């Protein structure tokens, strides 16, 4: 009964979404003032009703999971009676159908947030924004109802479920999809604002000002979501990597890059009234790339480590939806932009020009990632053969584009609006520059060997860190209230610096040993010694595992005991690696179990890694998230 109620709520939600998408926008087009207000006022209540209905459907699915109702096909495929309760709940978004339900739930949540926090906006603007969000919701609800219904029954019911993919049975992965989706879906709000502005013909500072906090919040979620995914891959996949240039990772990186450009471009549009067309285009692009990511992930056109069940019918639906949404908005752009986007002039050297340069670099980097991601598809479509594009391409193309982007952060934030002077900027930053160069030359010796790559990466990181610190110190020493957005900006930039130093450190100084070990064997990565003490069988709620006990010694003293595990889950017989990691401020010690090499399982292949600076990667991401939160909380946006 509960699944049927959920299904019914979802159908009602689709009907309400159609009303939410059509009526308020119609209200902005009719002549009669009374009808105008009546129709436009429908935006908020329909949005609220839609949220309630989708939340009900989501609750119904979650209840089916927690009740172990294996007569629901989706539940039987993604849960199991032995699965711990928190994971049974998280299993709601452990598969395709449920994650789409989460998608629309979050979309309706964002829409309600817009409805609540838009008191200062003119009614017609609210009507358009909520209307556009409603139309997007219609598309996704139809997608769910026609091709991916999570409430489908399985008759006769299964005795027990097939269990949640063991890879997903992990706290990091429980919150990774919701965070990532909050980011993707949040870009829909920026998109809705941009499309509404195009529709109304009012592409002004007020529009940019309204869009900014929403975009920043979406960006913050996206940053956190990507960071979580990377962190999870690092400790769960068992080979110590944290970024693989997998198509699905790229699908999340592209909206992030464009979103970053959008945040900065919106600032220029708000402050100086320029780049209007560019900013609108970025807003459209950020959401389009989120949709494209959905297409790539859900249709199975590309091979990826994220093995989602793919279905060509779904691919066709998403592609048509993508073509309609993006095609319509780009047509609207082509039609309206020339008239509404006449913006201010710009001097060659000014904060605007630096921000524009960065924006362009980020977009080019996005294009490079996009090209690498879909290149196999294009080549195949042209009948030129099958190929795959790997990390060497991405590293070779991405790094040269991101290096100038990161470098320009500092001059860009020091330069004045409208008209700046290169000499003046150079004068202001000369000691910072010298300091960064000095650190870049000296630090590699301390870290264990000088190389040009290390020095260059460290220079870039130190340059941003010192430049940010300089600006903060100068500002703090002056009187006057400092807004939250000032802290947000500089903390996020500092996070970028930490991330760059982290990436450089890991790439240049990591030591990886793949060895075979028996009990009592020792591996040394100076100054650490790893000793395999014992191998034990342990039991979890729904798995059995071999747990190794690895002592880490430094100067003959035990400083840590690592316990990597190899788990075998009962329901799927899939083997999972749980790495043993000791995190310090400067480094991780990483041990994971490979495969048993003999019958008695006393000898194992093991990975013993020394990973410097890995904690800095997560630290950098968290600082960026903190910066995003502070920027969004700035008082200016709440007036």
């Amino acid at each position, binding site marked *: 009964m509960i699944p049927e109620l959920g299904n019914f709520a979802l159908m009602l939600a689709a009907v309400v979404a159609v009303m939410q998408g059509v009526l308020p926008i119609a209200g902005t087009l009719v002549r009669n003032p009374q009808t105008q207000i009546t129709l436009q006022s429908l935006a908020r209540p329909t949005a609220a009703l839609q949220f309630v209905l989708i939340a009900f459907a989501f609750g119904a699915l979650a209840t089916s999971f927690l009740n172990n109702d294996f007569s629901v096909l989706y539940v039987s495929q993604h849960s199991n009676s032995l699965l711990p309760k928190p994971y049974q709940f998280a299993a709601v978004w452990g598969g395709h159908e449920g994650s789409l339900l989460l998608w629309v739930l979050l979309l309706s949540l964002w829409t309600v947030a817009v409805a609540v926090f838009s008191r200062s906006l003119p009614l017609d603007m609210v009507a358009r924004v909520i209307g556009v969000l409603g139309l997007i919701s219609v598309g996704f609800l139809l997608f769910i109802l026609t091709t991916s219904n999570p409430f489908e029954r399985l008759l006769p019911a299964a005795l027990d479920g097939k269990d949640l993919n063991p890879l997903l049975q992990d706290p990091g992965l429980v919150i990774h999809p919701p965070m990532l989706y909050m980011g993707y879906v949040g870009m829909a709000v920026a998109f809705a604002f941009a499309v509404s502005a195009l529709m109304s013909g009012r592409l002004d500072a007020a529009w940019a000002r309204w869009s900014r906090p929403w975009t920043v919040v979406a960006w913050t979620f996206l940053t956190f979501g990507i960071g979580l995914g990377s962190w999870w891959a690092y400790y769960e996949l068992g080979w110590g990597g944290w970024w693989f240039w997998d198509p699905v990772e790229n699908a999340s990186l592209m909206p992030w890059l464009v979103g970053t450009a959008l945040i900065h471009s919106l600032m220029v549009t708000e402050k100086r009234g320029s780049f209007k067309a560019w900013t609108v285009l970025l807003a459209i692009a950020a959401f389009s790339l989120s949709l494209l990511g959905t297409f790539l992930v859900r249709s199975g056109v590309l091979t990826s480590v994220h093995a989602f069940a793919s279905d060509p019918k779904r691919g066709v639906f998403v*592609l048509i939806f993508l073509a309609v949404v993006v095609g319509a908005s*780009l047509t609207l752009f*082509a039609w309206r932009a020339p008239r509404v986007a006449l913006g201010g002039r710009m001097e060659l050297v000014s904060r605007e020009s630096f921000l524009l340069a960065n924006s362009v670099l980020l977009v080019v980097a996005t294009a490079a990632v996009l090209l690498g991601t*879909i290149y196999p598809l294009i080549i*195949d479509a042209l009948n030129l053969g099958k190929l795959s594009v790997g990390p060497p391409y991405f590293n070779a193309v991405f790094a040269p584009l991101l290096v100038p982007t990161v470098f320009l952060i500092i001059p860009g934030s020091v330069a004045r609006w409208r008209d700046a002077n290169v000499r003046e900027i150079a004068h202001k930053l000369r000691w910072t520059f010298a300091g960064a160069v000095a650190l870049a030359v000296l630090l590699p010796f301390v870290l264990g060997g000088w190389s040009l790559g290390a020095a260059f990466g460290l220079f870039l990181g130190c340059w941003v860190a010192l430049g940010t610190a300089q600006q903060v110190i100068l500002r703090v020493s002056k009187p006057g209230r400092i807004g939250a957005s000032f802290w947000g900006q500089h903390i996020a930039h500092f996070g970028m610096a930490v991330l760059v130093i982290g990436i450089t450190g890991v790439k240049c100084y990591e030591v990886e040993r793949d060895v075979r070990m028996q009990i009592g064997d020792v591996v040394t990565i100076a100054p650490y010694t790893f000793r395999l003490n014992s191998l034990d069988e342990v039991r979890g709620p729904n798995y059995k595992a071999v747990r190794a006990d690895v002592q880490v010694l430094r100067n003959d003293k035990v400083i840590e005991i690592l316990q990597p595990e190899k788990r075998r889950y009962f329901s799927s017989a899939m083997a999972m690696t749980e790495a043993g990691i000791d995190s310090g401020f400067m480094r991780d010690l990483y041990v994971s179990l490979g*495969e048993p090499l003999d019958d008695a399982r006393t000898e194992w292949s093991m990975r013993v890694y020394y990973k410097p600076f890995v904690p800095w990667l997560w630290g950098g991401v968290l600082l960026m998230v903190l910066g995003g939160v502070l920027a969004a909380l700035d008082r200016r946006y709440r007036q």
Partner: protein
Amino acid sequence: MKKVLIPLVLFMGLVVFLAVGLKRDPREIPSPLIGKPAPHFTLFTLEPGDAKFSPVDMQGQVWMLNVWATWCVACREEHPVLVAFSEKNQVPIVGLSYKEIQPQDPAYKSPFDEKLKLARERSQVWLKRHGNPYVTSVMDLDGRVGINYGVYGVPETYVIDKAGVIRYKFVGAMTPALLAEKVLPLIAELNKS
């Protein structure tokens, strides 16, 4: 006016490619070897001793060659499918143990005899644990046979006809659906001729 149309035009181009791409399966990799005789080889088999296997031994019957290794993660996913398939006895499956001892393995530089012994041991242990779908498995330690067959990624599966000609190749883990829809009909047809 024209400049603002650029994004739309670029996007339309992208949609065309995506639409065409939707009809292709990225894992179906064409092999120039299809329709050609299976490359010849003679290799030691899994069983201890000097027994060797060559494709000529299978002349006159339709058979499958499955490339695998104990270090291969996708093989573990595929394996239960193969084991269940082999229990129906519809077609003999020969395993090709591909580069069992990887370059990062400490045993990689040992003499051939030791490597062979170690690889055999490991493979036996693995097959005992996961089930053995193979009539026999051959040891391609240095991967040379793999090169001749154009092995792209492990696991891979080939269907070879009575005359020793490769008829089908699949890269990646076999699925029950693929076996039922593509492989079995092909085998039935090849068995008739």
